[in-house]
């Protein structure tokens, strides 16, 4: 796999504000990469730097092996789908679709034939003579995609393309975008603040915060082995529980919960845990198990008991808030015959306990 887009030590300053800090990123040809992070972390800035809409202040960018650091946007051969769609309001759907071809000197007849073709597989066939203002949000979204795919650019860039759609449409468009990507064998970079979108659509997820890449890798790698507390809390829904703890020996910790329960942890190549070492334990809500039958109600090695504060059920899943202030979240399949105030005994698989340094937030 060759790198289609390569960023080396890329930095971007807006005046005194340092928006991108030493970004190193290699995007393989044919891959679907998601840039994800909270609002304001620099995702759009990074995407716009790839497109050439922002000038990077330091570092190097190559696309398909060619130096692109200071090449103007129209010579980069990249297509972008904007959050606002940026459809040309004074042009019909067809005129919008053929615009990129006409600007590149493709003949009118050939461009129209391509537009017919693209309209066919993006579901716009009956809409070619309409103006953008006569389309629904989902249809506009399709026109924006059609305009991007009508030529075969070196990469597709998406900046939160689904954020203006309703929830149901968002889920179906997610699949459509991914299917389109696979069909075209394209290279795509997809910006979103929604980690579910990133996890479900991408082959490679890049988590950003404050202009820094916190971690990148395959979606499940980020879930299974977050390198720091930020990524651990950002990936996964509902968010991971963090509980202060300290080491007992190399294979167990004591949680800062009533009764100081001790739980076993297993280490996979991390540095050995020291007795008394302060750590933060990360416990995913979906990994906490409710202990029933024998052993229920007892706090001891491997289990701890917490009161139930709040019960929310969606029918298929039950969300519980546990602890004195409801600070511990738990997700269970099915329904629970529980009432606030009941006490629950929990356990967790040692392999699923994540440990972080309380100061640096790094995985220990």
């Amino acid at each position, binding site marked *: 796999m060759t790198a289609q887009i390569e960023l080396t030590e890329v930095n971007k300053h807006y005046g005194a504000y340092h928006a991108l800090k030493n970004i190193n990123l290699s995007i393989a040809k044919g891959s679907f990469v998601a840039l994800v992070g909270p609002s304001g972390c620099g995702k759009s800035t990074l995407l716009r730097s790839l497109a050439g809409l922002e000038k990077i202040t330091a570092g190097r960018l190559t696309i398909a092996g060619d130096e692109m650091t200071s090449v103007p946007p129209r010579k980069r051969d990249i297509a*972008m789908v904007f959050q606002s769609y940026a459809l040309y309001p004074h042009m019909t759907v067809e005129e919008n679709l053929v615009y990129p071809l006409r600007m590149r000197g493709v003949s009118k007849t050939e461009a129209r034939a391509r537009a017919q073709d693209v309209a066919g597989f993006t579901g716009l066939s009956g809409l070619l003579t309409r103006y953008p*203002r006569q389309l629904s949000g989902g249809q506009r979204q399709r026109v924006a995609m059609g305009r991007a795919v009508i030529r075969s650019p070196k990469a597709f860039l998406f900046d939160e393309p689904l954020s203006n759609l309703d929830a149901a449409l968002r889920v179906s468009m997610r699949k459509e975008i991914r299917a389109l990507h696979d069909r075209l064998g394209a290279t795509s970079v997809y910006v979103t603040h929604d980690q579910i979108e990133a996890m479900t659509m991408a082959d490679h997820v890049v988590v950003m915060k404050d202009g820094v890449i916190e971690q990148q890798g395959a979606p499940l790698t980020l879930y299974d082995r977050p390198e720091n507390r930020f990524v651990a809390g950002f990936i996964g829904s509902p968010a991971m529980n963090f509980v202060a703890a300290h080491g007992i020996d190399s294979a167990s910790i004591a949680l800062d919960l009533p009764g100081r329960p001790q739980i076993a942890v297993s280490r996979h190549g991390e540095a050995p845990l020291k007795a008394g070492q302060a750590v933060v334990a990360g416990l995913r809500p979906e990994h906490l198990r409710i202990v029933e039958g024998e052993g229920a109600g007892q706090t001891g090695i491997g289990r701890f008991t917490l009161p139930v504060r709040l019960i929310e059920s969606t029918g298929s899943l039950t969300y519980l808030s546990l602890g004195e202030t409801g600070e511990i979240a738990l997700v269970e399949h099915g329904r629970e015959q529980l009432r606030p105030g009941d006490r629950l005994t929990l356990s967790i698989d040692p392999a699923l306990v994540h440990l972080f340094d309380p100061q640096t937030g790094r995985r220990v």
Partner: protein
Amino acid sequence: MKSIFSSLRDGRGFDVSLVAFPMAFLFLLSGLPLVYNIVMSLQEVDMFSLGTFARPFVGLKNYATLFSQPETWPILKNTALFVTASIAGQFLIGFGLALFFWNEFPGASWLRGLFLVSWVMPGLVVGAIWNWILSGDFGVLNYVLRSAGLISGNIFWRSDPAFALWAVILANIWLGISFNMILLSVGLSSIPKDLFEAAELDGAGAFARFFTITLPMMRATIGAVVSLGLIFTLQQFDLFAAITSGGPNNASNVAQYWAWDLSFRQYDFAQGATISVIMIVFVMIASVIYVRSTRQEVRG
């Protein structure tokens, strides 16, 4: 009485009164004078019949008289030239400046604000300033043109029949630039920036972007600016009064100044009204274009 008040409050009567007040205002202050003017152009009016409304109707005689006068066609030609040249100059320079200030550079909005100075100045003051600039003996314009080697002798802008109208046009262009620039600037800044970014990624260069995005998106604004410019230019009176008084020998006379001159200096009210009616027709056409262009506004 009670029901009137309650209907005011419950909404329906309120709507009607909101519309009724401005309509009454418009009718009294614009509609009636307009009709009066049209009626007057069909009557025989002199100093003695001015106070009454019962004047002899003469049909289209005033129009016939008007077009049989030797100065009529040259003055209408002057008017056409004044309007076209003024609007062309105001629009092109105004659009150029609007595009220039659109590139956000340090101090851009501050400098743009300075241009408003010409807009708040009364036409008579502008006229006085241009009188100095255009002055034949010591005017700045002659000095600049001479220094640049464009002319050898002084041009007597205000008294040379070949230049008098152009002197007023020059001043009027200067007066109208800021209005054009501000309105066009507003139009430009209301075009979403991402359209230009999308076009750039779609492969459009600066010229292609101007002709395929900027101009079509500005259609409504341009229509409005040009038709308002037409209306303002047809109303421009102060500059003629201040700079040339329509002279020499009508060389810089235009319809609006002539109408005033006929009515209030020669007391030929019927002729003055007749010219006004002809101008109303043109203003009406401009107004229709204006209303249509704002109605067809394209916004995504």
